[in-house]
């Protein structure tokens, strides 16, 4: 019937057309999918590195991996997880969901959007090529000076790290601009800020975070690049500089970065919980403002990563206190979610399981965070496995759970197919068990004297049992990915049809067919409230959504647009420019000619981009 027809037409809009159409696409939905696949693959690769790490640490004094290789592994594991798995996966959801949620037909700068994706992909591939060219970076994901000076890290490893992250940074900042402008300028009529879905809200906040916290990091990387390549002295104690400067530059970025990874997950949960409680969000404004508060405070706490540097009691006291404050807005979110669940009709779909799982497990990581926030107690915890436990609880129990929740929630929208609930449940329980089995023991091994970033540990420490448990857990993790991957493939091929709104969810993305047509909205909706899908009645005063016939499904979009829709045409300049930058980056490894060629290509790309007519398409 009608829904099917819509779905079918949507298919043509979305998936027909060969490789070329993907290379030149500027459709936020396709770019979102590209981001997702890329992020997932990097998650698996980095996860594999995690497995290797755990294998080496299964027992004391093992010599399975060579120390230098081990050091490369945890550096790449951390760097990949944060920059090439975490960030792309959240960006995938920004791309796919935000325009649909605010009632827009695309993002503000579609070509810039494509560009962001390509540079990110190239940066990731570039980083991994280092394994082939004389060794991956091995300075740890925060690359502390002076260990990362050429004097102590000869070889190209750290140059790969610097250049790859510079490239990725360009993409992130472009993305930040794009989503900020999109959300501020392209909301559908009536979509006031206080009617925006929570996920969109968190995206807005994160876009601002990205814009403010990436530049200092970029500069830090440039300094390091110059120190390595041109013999400057930004971090050279002998020349009067202070290596601690790097720690400041990194963490001024690094701490907000962890909230960049977290807030979108919170956004997902804040949309999923109401959908499966059949009950509007409890304390919407409070949740919004606590999000803003977390982001704001997040800029004033970076020194909590440096409590053992010896910056003096005053500094430590101030930053310790500031860090603790963040517990308050975070707690507010937790309690409001519970209050939303309270009195609802809770339906435990995989999306809901992961959302509730997040509320439960993130809290554990948050609480160990508060233990770190107290500088004296952190003097015993910093650089031990206690910290490793903390940040995996928040990163997996927070970010990853949130992302999986979002995956199960929006997959039907993106593909028109339902996923299997039972496989999803298996995936959740396995992940949940794996998380706790792997990382809970690390609290103990940490406090009992297990330092992090060590390729082995003495038998005399008596830590074999804990480490063995952790390793077992890590392997459960690997198993946990089987139901996921299977579920994805199976559902893509033979999942039952989803229809526009399989969950009876409340926000705008559920008004059109699944997958949505190329133009998203046949008619731009008129928004009268936060949960348009749940309230057919139109509030007094506001006129009914244009072109929408009131009736059985008054809130659904019409099948075909009443009048033709102008959409931006495909363009290969973004890809072209990204290639140019990649070549320039490769040149950055030490070949001026290559760098110049790259720069030249980029220039051509820029001009081509600037002069390309943005011709329309129906």
């Amino acid at each position: 019937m009608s829904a099917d027809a819509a779905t079918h037409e949507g298919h043509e809009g979305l998936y027909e057309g060969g490789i070329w159409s993907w290379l030149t696409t500027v459709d936020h939905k396709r770019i979102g999918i590209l981001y997702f696949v890329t992020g997932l693959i990097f998650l698996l690769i980095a996860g594999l590195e995690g497995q290797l790490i755990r294998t080496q640490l299964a027992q004391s004094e093992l010599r399975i991996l060579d120390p230098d290789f081990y050091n490369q592994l945890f550096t790449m594991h951390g760097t990949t997880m944060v920059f090439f798995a975490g960030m792309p996966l959240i960006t995938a959801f920004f791309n796919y969901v935000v325009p649909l949620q605010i009632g827009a037909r695309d993002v503000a700068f579609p070509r810039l959007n494509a560009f962001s994706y390509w540079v990110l992909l190239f940066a990731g591939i570039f980083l991994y090529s280092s394994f082939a060219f004389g060794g991956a970076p091995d300075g740890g994901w925060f690359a502390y000076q002076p260990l990362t000076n050429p004097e102590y890290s000869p070889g190209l490893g750290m140059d790969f790290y610097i250049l790859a992250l510079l490239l990725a940074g360009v993409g992130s900042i472009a993305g930040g601009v794009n989503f900020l402008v999109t959300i501020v300028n392209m909301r559908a009529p009536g979509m006031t800020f206080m009617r925006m879905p929570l996920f969109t809200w968190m995206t807005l906040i994160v876009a601002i975070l990205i814009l403010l916290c990436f530049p200092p990091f970029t500069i830090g990387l440039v300094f390091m690049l110059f120190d390595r390549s041109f013999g400057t002295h930004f971090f050279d104690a002998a020349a009067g500089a202070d290596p601690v400067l790097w720690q400041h530059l990194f963490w001024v970025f690094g701490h907000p970065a962890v909230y960049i990874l977290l807030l979108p997950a919170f956004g997902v949960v804040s949309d999923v919980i109401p959908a499966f409680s059949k009950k509007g969000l409890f304390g919407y404004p409070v949740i919004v403002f606590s999000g803003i508060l977390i982001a704001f405070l997040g800029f004033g706490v970076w020194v909590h990563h440096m409590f053992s540097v010896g910056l003096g009691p005053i500094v430590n006291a101030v930053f310790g206190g500031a860090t603790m404050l963040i517990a308050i807005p975070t707690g507010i979110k937790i309690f409001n979610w519970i209050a939303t669940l309270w009195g609802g009709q809770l339906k435990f779909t995989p999306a809901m399981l992961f959302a509730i799982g997040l509320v439960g497990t993130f809290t554990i990581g948050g609480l160990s965070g508060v233990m770190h926030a107290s500088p004296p107690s952190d003097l015993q915890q910093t650089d031990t496995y206690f910290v490793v436990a903390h940040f995996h609880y928040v990163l997996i129990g927070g970010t990853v759970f949130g992302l999986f929740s979002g995956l199960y929630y929006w997959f039907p929208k993106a593909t028109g197919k339902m996923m299997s609930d039972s496989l999803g449940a298996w995936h959740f329980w396995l992940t949940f068990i794996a998380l706790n089995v792997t990382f809970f023991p690390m609290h103990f091994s940490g406090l009992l004297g297990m330092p992090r970033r060590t390729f082995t540990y003495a038998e005399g420490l008596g830590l074999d049992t804990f480490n063995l448990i952790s390793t077992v857990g890590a392997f459960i993790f690997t198993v946990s990915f089987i139901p996921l991957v299977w579920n994805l493939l199976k559902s893509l091929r033979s999942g039952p049809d989803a229809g526009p709104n399989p969950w009876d969810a409340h926000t705008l993305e559920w008004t059109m067919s699944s997958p949505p047509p190329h133009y998203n909205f046949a008619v731009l909706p008129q928004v009268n409230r936060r949960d348009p899908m749940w309230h057919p009645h139109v509030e007094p005063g506001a006129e009914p959504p244009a072109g929408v016939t009131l009736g059985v499904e008054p809130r659904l979009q019409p099948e075909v647009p009443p009048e033709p829709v102008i959409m931006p045409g495909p363009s290969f300049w973004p890809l072209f420019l990204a290639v140019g930058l990649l070549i320039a980056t490769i040149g950055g490894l030490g070949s001026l000619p290559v760098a110049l060629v790259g720069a030249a290509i980029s220039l051509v790309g820029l001009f081509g981009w600037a002069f390309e007519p943005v011709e329309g398409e129906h």
Partner: protein
Amino acid sequence: ILNRRLLIAAALVIAVVAGACGGEYPQSALHPESDFAERLDVLFAQIFWWAVGVFVVVEGILLYTVFRWRENPERGRPKEVHGHTMMEIGWTLVPALILVAIAIPTIRTIFIVDNPTTDPDALTVEAVGRQWWWEFNYPELGIQTANEIHIPVGRTIDVRVRSADVLHSFWVPRLGGKRDLVPGRENQIWFTADSTGVYWGQCAEYCGTAHALMSFRVIVDTPEDFDAWAAVNAGGAVTIQDAEARAGKAVFESNACVSCHTIRGTIAQGQFGPDLTHFGSRLTIGAGILDNTLENLRYWIDSTQHAKPGNFMPEVQLTDAQVAQLAAYLLALR
């Protein structure tokens, strides 16, 4: 479904706690043996119990809610509740108060542990971090040693830490917290050991290939034992009688060893590697990674790059006999 979570969590906690209680943990932060470590531990315990409280409450309410309100056709569509000001204020204030309760002892402790010691007759020990071993000096006693320190019980030790190359961090969990060694800065940490014994220390800031193998030992002696130790270690090397050891001395002095190591009272005056003047009296080899026994020592001399990959000591080509002699000599240096 969801009670499985609870069970697993509980089971884990029990299993793991049980694990934590048995056994000997020479590098544990939970078994303090000094005033400094004691302070950190007390503070941690306070925060920990607050956290447990929060954990129980939050997870309790969460689980109850999830069971109580799971889907049930009897109940109709839930009615909308958009918020509740008093509740919001409540769950803002309560955490705030808990945090105050955590912050006050925290700040008190900060101003004790982050300030230099005020004890006038503290014993100064200078710790210099090098890739990947520790040089220790006692300025007042004119002692230089490596990878282990002896200290008298009950006397304040004022540790001055600095780095010769990259970042390192001085950490003896049972005696105190971490203090980073930063090129171009001098840092301090102090503690007074409560009881004699051997405590493990470890470099706690990633510093390259052999970071994992950059440990050391702190031996807390009775004052008498300490003075005895100090008396010996302030002086030069003992004169060697044993024939094999003498042969070893010859080997040592006719090889590259002398260019890196110092043995006071001999021609060996190298500055690059650890001082070996009283090596025989030390507990460990290679920065706390091997017990200082004859065969371990042979192994170390013979294939140091396997014992400690990446370390800067070259594998000098020697016959097994020479290795044995060297080992005998070094162990004789008590």
